[in-house]
């Protein structure tokens, strides 16, 4: 198995808060300027805290049904992302995968999804 992709977040040099995605404006905890925010690498690896399969969606992409999870990264931050696969369950271990997709205007984008580690 390949290593999970690395996600680049930030860590505040003043209050040490780690956040993902990195914020272009400043630190939400202490208000430090963005110049005080250092790049901080997070491994795209964690576990599923909550899961929902979406049956109705306002846009053609992604096509339904797709599954969204709340993923708690090993490094701490909690985020929401598409989790690939049919039978995703709370507690499953997941790693990040980069997926070619389209935005709502049909432009190509690379998305970070997660998939269950068996």
């Amino acid at each position, binding site marked *: 198995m390949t290593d999970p992709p690395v996600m680049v977040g930030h860590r505040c040099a003043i209050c040490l808060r780690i956040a993902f*995605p*990195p914020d*272009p404006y400043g630190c939400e905890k202490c208000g430090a300027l963005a110049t005080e925010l250092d790049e901080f690498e997070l491994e795209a690896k964690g576990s599923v805290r*909550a899961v*929902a399969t979406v049956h*109705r969606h306002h846009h053609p992409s*992604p096509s339904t049904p797709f599954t969204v999870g709340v993923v708690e990264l090993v490094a*701490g931050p909690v985020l*929401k992302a598409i989790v690939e696969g049919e039978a995703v369950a709370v507690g499953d271990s997941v790693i990040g995968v980069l997926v070619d997709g389209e935005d709502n205007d049909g432009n190509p984008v690379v998305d970070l999804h997660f998939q269950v580690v068996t």
Partner: protein
Amino acid sequence: MSSRSLLSDRPVFVVGTGLHPYQRRSETTYVDLGITAVRAALVDAGVMWPDIEAAYTGTALLGMGSSRIMLSRLGATGIAMTQVENASASGSSAVAQACLEVASGRSDVVLALGVDKPRGGLGAAPGQAGIPNLEGGSIVPFTHFALLASEYMDLHGVSDEQVARVALKNHRNGSLNPFAQRQKVRTLEEILSEPISGSLTRLQCCPVGEGAAAVIVASEDGIKRLNLDRSRAVQVLSSVTRTEGLYGEGVGIDAALTAETGMAAFEEANVDPSDIDVLEVHDAFAIEELLYAEALGLCKPGEAASRVESGDFDIGGSCAFSPSGGLLAMGHPIGPTGVGQIAEIVSQLRGEAGDRQQPEARVGMAHMVGIGAVCVVHVLRCE
């Protein structure tokens, strides 16, 4: 934070309420929607339009300058008029501003109106903030709440069916409300059909239509001067607005924000959660009623689903939740919603709610959250 409450120094009372039915989008203009609700509130209060000293219009979707266009049709009296936008809580914030205006002593009789005509899409600012978001367009509000439902059900061993019972109750309440967008009693089977996201189904998500709601608030002096019916005046004990803080990774923001706003509102009102007889909460999605019942301290964590199942949150139960039908059945036309909640609570506390009357209701609460996230809570009491 100041411990002194403007609302206790100079008490504020709701003296009139009026509604335009919440309905699917139609050809009715927002002017028609708005003045219908205001005229009903004036009649209810026994107040003439020229007696109104200022007006706040809660609207998120109408665009610039709606108040004067609408309200001058009642007479261009030249009073101060201001639009108030606070996402789903826009109407609640209009009420908050009207109460503040009276409590401050600047005015004695003030209108809070909510009106909106959703045009599809919410034009919400977060999407244009230039703050990157991994979720992209794949996680819309109903999926956010479907994920909260998943987490709640997993944590407390609650079933899909138990969550759906919130919608069963609120659709039943809505069937008794002539102003509700959804007025049909539903079966559990109907509510569990038509999945949208996760365990959430169509009937566990609120309809966003159009409508209007108005309340008139007044000071003691205003009530005396205009010779209004003191016995039908309902006091606003507290009005609290807060926005989302940092709650630690993975903590549900909607419930955490509700908990701190609710606590501040109980404190300002000098009441306990157990004193609440009737309340309207932001049940845009069925799971929310369970989350907020617990966050507001109206039951213990993990207990809300069984309280709904036992009928405790029904009209006639220990505390009636969303007797209007809530956002799920009365509907969520955005601007009007928070004002309509106050209209329902006032009707309950006056003992004028007819088939929906919670027996011996004395203390009531209205709670809204909105994208941002924001939370607005009001506590009211009849004398």
